[in-house]
């Protein structure tokens, strides 16, 4: 069995001091109803204590080694790379984690913290269902009650994941308000949390939300970049030219970026959902069109109209269908440390199909955005380049969408 070192006090699990608590430059903060402030303060204290408590760090490391399946492997994909201008491409295989995505890294840690805070119930929002399934899994493992909020539109396009969550013992609430997608699921989860905050922890699934969530969720995913950096060095003897990840809220991207932020020669490239194209207005490419605003507790880039009302986003992948983005991404973008591009639904489906057929790996549609970005970036950089791509999830949940897109469903045979 692979060795997973227990994080010690030098690792990134220890929260870093920010100039202003919870702020990344002007982004982040804590824009919430007062009723939630005590719970956020309690959470911040609990996670800071946990980060330096071996009882917590050892238990999390044990779970990752014996339950999650960490460290996740690195896979070089030469047949796929042939379509990326000949650049060398390696995938960080978060799709091989238990429950099929990176989401489990954060959820196991937050579930442990839930128990440390003496709470007995967790709630979560989910878009594609990956985070909901991961939360339902952790709740089953640790004996916590679990309710997952999911937009009604998403329960329909991700029906299989709804069944998975229910089989794991979670209650799934289909949210019909607003656009009935991820943002509305978060609204409903926040309403639940305001009401039940005494017994309930809200396991936010990405690097958004009020402080300390963006920092905490990043730290729980930083293991991705920690492992990947060492693995790439071992495999190739050098650092990659670029690290590529899809960005919805941006948790898998922050997880793999974080360890590379200090490596100035490494480009950090986030790929947003271009949907049907920027000019169509039906997309989730926040950095291509949006301006700073507040949604769900944090200041960040936000798709909004001239009054500040949230504009509905669109993506073929439910997990990226969100009108805002984690505040640290906004910060890294504004200071020029990370760069963001987008891939349209059609480019994504092409990259999805390409990886399936050249490498026998079926990626999540979310992760296929990163692959589309790698195809583009590889062609720009040429054969000398080395790209590290975060394959954040597997595509089993997307078979219905993919089959419909490629016309593979024989309606008569049903």
């Amino acid at each position: 069995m692979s060795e997973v070192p227990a994080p010690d006090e030098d690792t990134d699990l220890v929260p870093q001091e920010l100039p202003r608590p919870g702020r990344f430059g002007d982004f982040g903060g804590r824009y919430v109803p007062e009723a939630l402030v005590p719970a956020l303060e309690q959470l911040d204290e609990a996670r800071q204590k946990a980060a330096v408590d071996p009882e917590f760090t050892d238990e999390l490391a044990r779970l990752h080694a014996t339950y999650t399946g960490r460290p996740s492997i690195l896979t070089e994909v030469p047949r796929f790379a042939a379509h990326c201008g000949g650049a060398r491409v390696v995938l960080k295989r978060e799709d091989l984690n238990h429950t099929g995505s990176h989401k489990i890294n954060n959820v196991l840690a937050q579930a442990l913290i839930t128990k440390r805070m003496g709470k007995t119930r967790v709630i979560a929002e989910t878009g594609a269902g990956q985070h909901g399934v991961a939360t339902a899994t952790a709740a089953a493992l640790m004996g916590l009650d679990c309710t997952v909020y999911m937009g009604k539109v998403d329960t329909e396009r991700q029906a299989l994941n709804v069944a998975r969550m229910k089989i794991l013992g979670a209650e799934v609430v289909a949210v019909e308000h607003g656009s009935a997608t991820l943002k509305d699921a978060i609204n409903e989860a926040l309403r639940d949390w305001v009401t039940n905050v005494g017994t309930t922890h809200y396991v936010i699934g990405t690097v958004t939300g009020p402080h300390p969530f963006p920092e905490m969720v990043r730290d729980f995913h930083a293991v991705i970049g920690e492992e990947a950096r060492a693995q790439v060095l071992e495999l190739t003897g050098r650092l990659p030219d670029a690290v590529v990840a899809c960005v919805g809220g941006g948790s898998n991207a922050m997880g793999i970026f974080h360890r590379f932020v200090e490596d100035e020669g490494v480009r950090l490239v986030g790929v947003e959902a271009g949907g049907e194209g920027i000019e169509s207005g039906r997309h989730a490419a926040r950095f291509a069109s949006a301006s700073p605003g507040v949604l769900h507790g944090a200041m960040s880039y936000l798709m909004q109209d001239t009054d500040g009302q949230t504009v509905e986003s669109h993506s073929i992948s439910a997990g990226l269908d969100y009108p805002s983005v984690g505040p640290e991404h906004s910060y890294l973008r504004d200071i020029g440390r990370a760069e963001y591009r987008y891939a349209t639904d059609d480019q994504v489906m092409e990259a999805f199909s390409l990886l399936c057929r050249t490498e026998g790996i079926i990626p999540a549609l979310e992760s296929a955005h990163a692959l589309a970005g790698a195809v583009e970036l590889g062609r720009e950089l040429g054969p000398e380049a080395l790209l590290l791509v975060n394959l954040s999830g597997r595509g089993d949940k997307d078979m219905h969408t993919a089959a419909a897109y490629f016309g593979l469903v024989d309606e008569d045979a049903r």
Partner: protein
Amino acid sequence: MSATGAGVEDVLLRCRAEGRVALIGYLPVGYPSVEGSVAAMRVLVEAGCDIVEVGLAYSDPVIDGPVNQDAMAAALEAGVRVDDAFDAVAAVREAGATPVVMSYWNLVLHRGVERFAADLAAAGGAGLITPDLVPDEADDWVAASDRHGLDRIFLVAPSSTPERLARVTAACRGFVYAASTMGVTGARSSVDGDARGLVERVRAVSDIPVCIGLGVSTREQAAEIAGYADGVIVGSALVRTLGGDGELDERLESLRTLTTALAQGVREGHR
């Protein structure tokens, strides 16, 4: 006292002098239409509301329950704009009550905090209630409200610690909005459980008037709260009445009946 009429504190003092507490009514602008909502706010004033909370419809109202969510969604669907709120504020002022705006923060932020404050003051508004802005994030708003003589109404909740109560009340001007229970807006059969204790805890750290909101819908509840708070805030019960069946005129009459009963309630409280 603001430049254009009675401020929130003037109203609360006047009510106290009359041996009663204030009635504060909430309605969102644009529901069922901009004109309809302004007509409804006039009814609130005529029937005895001392302060009208002019609500701004928002796409993501995280501390509102289903009644207010649906009303906001309908208002946005019908095309309501933030600009319409300032017309409603002016109408409330003209009708003789004190208008305050209630808005989720991004609408204020996007307009520009300074510009929003200037527009609110120019329309005759007395202040702003900010359900998702805590004083810790409010430096710009504190400065702008000082420049324009506007009241700042932050919220406290049953979960608030003594430290938070002290911090929030210190930042408030006019009154502090005390959420009666943990949860979202919407009528409840009982509001007394946490509310009385919360008011006592606020009084232990501050002299600022305390108004109770969330869940109040009946004359009896209003009378009960009048026994220990400085004001009674009614929201979704009014919204639900305005959104009932029948022609708008009939619904406005139902609204008048409910508001009149609530206004009697705030006069029945015994300290």
